[in-house]
């Protein structure tokens, strides 16, 4: 089964336009101006989708699609947005009417989102009546989707309002065969879906190795919570990472593929890591030794992450010494994006999140931005049968 990457660009644009249309519908209904913050298409397991809703309460609607494109959309408002919308449309009304207002808003917005796809495909896409949903994490997801291990494409949009607290997410999860059929005939630039899946698995393995390296060095028990490969307009990358403050390292890697890698810890996690590595009181926010410890951890995690690519591809990938960073996520990514945007409009963003087991108190994000055209080449050359050769024992070589 082949995927045309150029078609993904088109469909990413359609998803963005659809999200914009949904945002405009909401503005018309409530009078609140909203804008699309980010839209991307990600390859992930349904289990990883849970992360979209972990930690916060959401409510919204689920709508099933039929006809030329089958699957489902989830349009969810965070608690503050739900309250503002219901308060605007159904003030003083009983709970069931307020809930109905959310259903109807969701219905109208989803139609706005889907219409562009139908127009592009010059066909009709049927939408089911909305099903109200609320909760967090797996509660929000379809039970069937959460149980599957098969990787799926997910179109994700985040819409925000500057003036009011209106944040909502649209997730569009088309059924795989239906999407591939919709993407149309493939050309020379296409890659097999299997290779995309395998590369995503290799990346997950790299993230697991990086998590293991954290554990070995610090004693903190960590695990990879989420792993996804997104295809995103390059200019959207900083917004994708968001304005949360991070401490970590940035590195450039060269070879096949070349690109950039950022390893970012949130403030408490960075402090936990440094306390474990440099167990002595130091003056100032980040002493030289503390920065050196973070850089060395970044260095070791980077190797854990990218060595698997090199070993499977029987190539060599060099990386620069790590640069220490302490800033908002978007500010850390902006200079990287500025350099990459000279040669590409879209990027593959490989995003893995590492947490401590259970409590989620520890948060580390690994963000890899490989050169898009080089990654396409890598995917074409990837030998699926070598995919498990990510690790090499030096004693077998020496």
């Amino acid at each position, binding site marked *: 089964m082949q995927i045309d990457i150029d078609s993904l660009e088109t469909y990413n644009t359609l998803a963005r336009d659809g999200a914009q249309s949904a945002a405009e519908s909401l503005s018309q209904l409530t009078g609140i101006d909203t804008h699309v913050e980010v839209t991307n298409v990600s390859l992930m397991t349904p289990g990883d989708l849970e992360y979209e809703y972990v930690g916060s309460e959401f409510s919204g609607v689920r709508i099933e699609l039929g006809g030329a494109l089958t699957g489902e959309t989830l349009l969810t408002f965070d608690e503050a947005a739900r309250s503002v919308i219901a308060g605007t449309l159904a003030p003083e009304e009983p709970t069931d009417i307020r809930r109905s207002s959310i259903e109807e808003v969701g219905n109208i917005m989803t139609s706005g989102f889907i219409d562009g796809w139908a127009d592009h495909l010059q066909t009709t896409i049927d939408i089911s009546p909305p099903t109200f949903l609320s909760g967090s994490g797996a509660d929000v997801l379809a039970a069937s989707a959460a149980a599957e291990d098969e990787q799926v494409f997910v179109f994700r949009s985040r819409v925000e309002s500057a003036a009011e607290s209106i944040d909502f997410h649209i997730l569009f999860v088309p059924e795989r065969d239906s999407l591939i059929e919709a993407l149309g005939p493939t050309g020379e630039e296409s890659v097999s879906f299997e290779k995309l899946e395998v590369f995503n698995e290799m990346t997950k393995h790299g993230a697991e190795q990086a998590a293991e*390296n954290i554990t*070995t*060095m610090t004693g903190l028990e960590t695990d990879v919570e989420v792993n996804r490969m997104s295809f995103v307009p390059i200019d959207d990358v900083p917004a994708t990472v968001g304005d949360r403050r991070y401490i970590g390292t940035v590195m450039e890697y060269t070879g096949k593929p070349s690109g950039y890698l950022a390893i970012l810890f949130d403030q408490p996690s960075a402090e936990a890591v440094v306390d474990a*590595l*440099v167990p002595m009181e130091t003056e100032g926010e980040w002493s*030289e*030794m503390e920065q*050196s*410890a973070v*850089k*060395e951890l970044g*260095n*070791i995690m*980077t*190797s*854990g992450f990218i*060595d698997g690519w*090199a*070993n499977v591809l*029987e*190539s*060599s*990938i*060099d*990386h*620069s*010494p790590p640069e220490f960073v302490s800033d908002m996520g978007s500010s850390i990514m902006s200079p990287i994006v500025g350099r990459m945007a000279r040669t590409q409009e879209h990027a593959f963003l490989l995003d893995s999140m590492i947490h401590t087991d259970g409590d989620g108190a520890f948060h580390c994000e690994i963000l890899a931005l490989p050169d898009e055209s080089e990654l396409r080449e890598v995917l074409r050359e990837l030998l699926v049968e070598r995919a498990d050769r990510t*690790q*090499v024992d*030096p004693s077998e*070589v*020496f």
Partner: protein
Amino acid sequence: MDVLIADDSEFMRSLLREILEGEYSIVDEAENGVEAIELYDEYDPDLVMMDIVMPIRDGIEATDEITDTDPGAKVIMCTSVGQEQKMKSAIQAGAEGYITKPFQKPSVLDEIENVVAG
């Protein structure tokens, strides 16, 4: 036995120093490949613990130059890089051992023992 440590990370140099002190004599520490070559010429150590990813000149280039000048030099790569092609490049450059970070004290001492024993 005299050991030269070459690693751009102050943190990693301090870890290695902790592991090696008491067992061996550390003659000096280099922060990049060029310094490693200069300090090797100056001290003629029995062993070099060499990182790969370093600024100015990397550890494989430095190893290549050191073993060109002194074919009897003993170098152990001590690196985060776990790529097969890099390991082969290290062998070509003249390295006799390879330790991947993160490491534990016994694995470092075992590798040194193996390399020194030839």
